[in-house]
């Protein structure tokens, strides 16, 4: 699916400053070497299984299934991973790769803080220095995660430029990488940025769909009818989709953050409201104005609050292989509360976007069908913000 220049259809590519070109080429060469290296894969599997807690559960949500009265609902529990989200899959892979490349320092961007926490964790484990860039707005929304990163030994740099959210954190991490390359690996957190990042991150996250497939065959003896996940940059979504792309019977649904609605300016639903552009190293869909200025986006979820989407998703959309649907703040918060009460599982507000869409489609499906929803992370980090959304002020 990837051509040598990292294209997914018209999307992808390497729209990067010349200063970083040799760094991304070096990364690609190292990755191509290590991805087939038995020793590397053995070490990574060891970290996945004995550190991150893989394989993650595929849980049959019986109460939710009965309540909705349609298809059988399974939850892929990435929230049970060490550090509380799917982000650890990618980070362990990249940190190990960086270490093999002789790098001693990891830098990362973070939105909700989950990727930052995961990177700080891997850095602590592998004895690497760690600097995390986080939009100042997000450091306030996710104060607990800022503390977790510091506790793990990372330096957190609040980014004040622009909208002070995820896109600005990415820009600032890229600027930092431009100034310090030789000892530093940019541990990008999603399936975005210049080639080879979208491919590397996808490959490390693809463990999610690999496990779903095995677990569904064990549980049901057949493939699921629908696999769905929330989608900002799209790493948990592509991880959930990847091993089903060739199985055309499986419907793939990415749930975008519509914020206050796709007919408002306060949205982050890229496929639903954006158009093709070039930004942050890649060609893909972006929320932008008529002159190509990147739009300030909005979502209650800091992790989906990004104006672009990974190039492979853009391609899956173009060819009609995956669907991308908008889910509003209100729908996501309702789903956050619903899953907590129905199954005793508090999902991340990001993941709640996928749950919200499931609440819409599952009742209309037949009882012999199955739906897998990836719960990309756990929702402890969101409790204070959701309480605020409901008009209740609690101390974190």
């Amino acid at each position: 699916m990837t051509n040598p220049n990292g294209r997914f259809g018209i999307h992808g590519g390497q729209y990067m400053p010349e200063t970083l070109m040799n760094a991304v080429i070096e990364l690609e060469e190292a990755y191509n070497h290590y991805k087939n290296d038995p020793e590397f894969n053995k070490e990574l599997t060891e970290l996945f299984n004995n550190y991150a807690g893989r394989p993650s559960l595929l849980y049959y949500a019986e109460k939710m299934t009965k309540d909705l009265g349609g298809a059988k609902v399974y939850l892929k529990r990435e929230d049970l991973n060490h550090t509380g989200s799917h982000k650890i899959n990618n980070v362990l892979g990249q940190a190990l790769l960086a270490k093999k490349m002789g790098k001693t320092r990891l830098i990362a961007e973070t939105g909700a803080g989950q990727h930052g926490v995961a990177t700080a964790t891997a850095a602590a484990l592998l004895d690497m220095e760690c600097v995390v860039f986080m939009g100042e707005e997000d450091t306030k929304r996710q104060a607990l995660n800022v503390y977790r990163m510091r506790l793990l030994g990372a330096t957190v740099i609040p980014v004040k430029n622009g909208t002070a959210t995820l896109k600005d954190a990415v820009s600032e991490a890229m600027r930092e990488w431009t100034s310090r390359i030789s000892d530093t690996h940019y541990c990008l957190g999603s399936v975005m940025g210049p080639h080879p990042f979208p491919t590397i991150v996808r490959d490390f996250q693809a463990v999610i769909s690999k496990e779903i497939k095995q677990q569904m065959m064990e549980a049901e003896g057949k493939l699921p009818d629908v696999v769905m996940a929330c989608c900002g940059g799209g790493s948990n979504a592509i991880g959930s989709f990847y091993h089903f792309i060739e199985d055309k019977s499986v419907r793939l649904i990415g749930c975008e953050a519509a914020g206050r609605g796709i007919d408002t300016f306060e949205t982050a639903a890229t496929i639903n409201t954006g158009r093709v552009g070039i930004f942050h190293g890649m060609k893909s869909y972006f929320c932008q104005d008529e002159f190509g200025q990147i739009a300030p986006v909005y979502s209650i979820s800091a992790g989906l609050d990004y104006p672009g989407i990974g190039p492979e998703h853009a391609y899956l959309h173009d060819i009609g292989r995956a669907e991308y649907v908008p889910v509003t703040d209100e729908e996501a918060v309702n789903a956050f509360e619903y899953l907590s009460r129905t199954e005793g599982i508090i999902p991340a507000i990001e993941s709640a976007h996928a749950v919200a869409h499931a609440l819409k489609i599952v009742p209309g499906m037949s009882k012999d069908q199955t739906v897998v929803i990836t719960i990309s992370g756990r929702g402890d980090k969101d409790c204070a913000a959701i309480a605020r959304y409901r008009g209740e002020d609690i101390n974190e």
Partner: protein
Amino acid sequence: MSNTAKAFENGKAFIPFITCGDPDLETTKLVVKEAVRAGADLIELGIPFSDPTAEGPVIQAASERALKGGVTTDKIFAMVEELRKEVTIPLTFMTYANVVFSYGAERFISHCKEVGIDGLVLPDIPFEEKEEFLPYTKKYGVDLVSLIAPTSEDRISMIASEAEGYIYIVSSLGVTGVRSKITTDIASLTSQVKAASHVPCAIGFGISTPEQAKAMAQYADGVIVGSAIVKIIAEYGKDAPSHVYEYIKSMKDAIR
């Protein structure tokens, strides 16, 4: 010879960068005219972008001010058309790929030709992606300027041999902005570039003082200065043109 290469006919070239629309387009016009009067050989006109990933804080802030002030690509094209009634030195646009792409690459580049823009500097278009715009820059005779960085190493000859107009040599790692010291081995970098190219080369990133400009001009055919000028404009606002004149005169004198 391309129009941009003509900038290097009067000895070492001095190339200022100006963010269009900071504080407003009227001031930008006056600054350009003063820059020409002070001896600028080519001017890079920055079309502000919302997320300029290759820029340091000074140009980031200028871009933000300009966009908040309502500047758009169309208004900048109109300004250049006006300027061209008086200004004859080569002019290039420096901006980001999405500004060109979203306008429609052919529409943008044909407009460049119509209004008298001679070249394009796009820091997020490396050698591997230049086909995105090259068919149109060739069709309309606008130079797509190549950048070479201290990390380019084995890529230098590939980039330099296909370069058009002039080569923009990035002096240092990191983003644009004033630096007290440039630590790259510029002599070695420029000699590698010159060995592989047929076009002049100019050095930018981090240069702000006449002494630095003079030192850089020993090795290169020109010197590019952005943040130092944008800083003067930020400080003096509408009164900036005369201050920019004084500054550029001192810089051009240093490299003559």
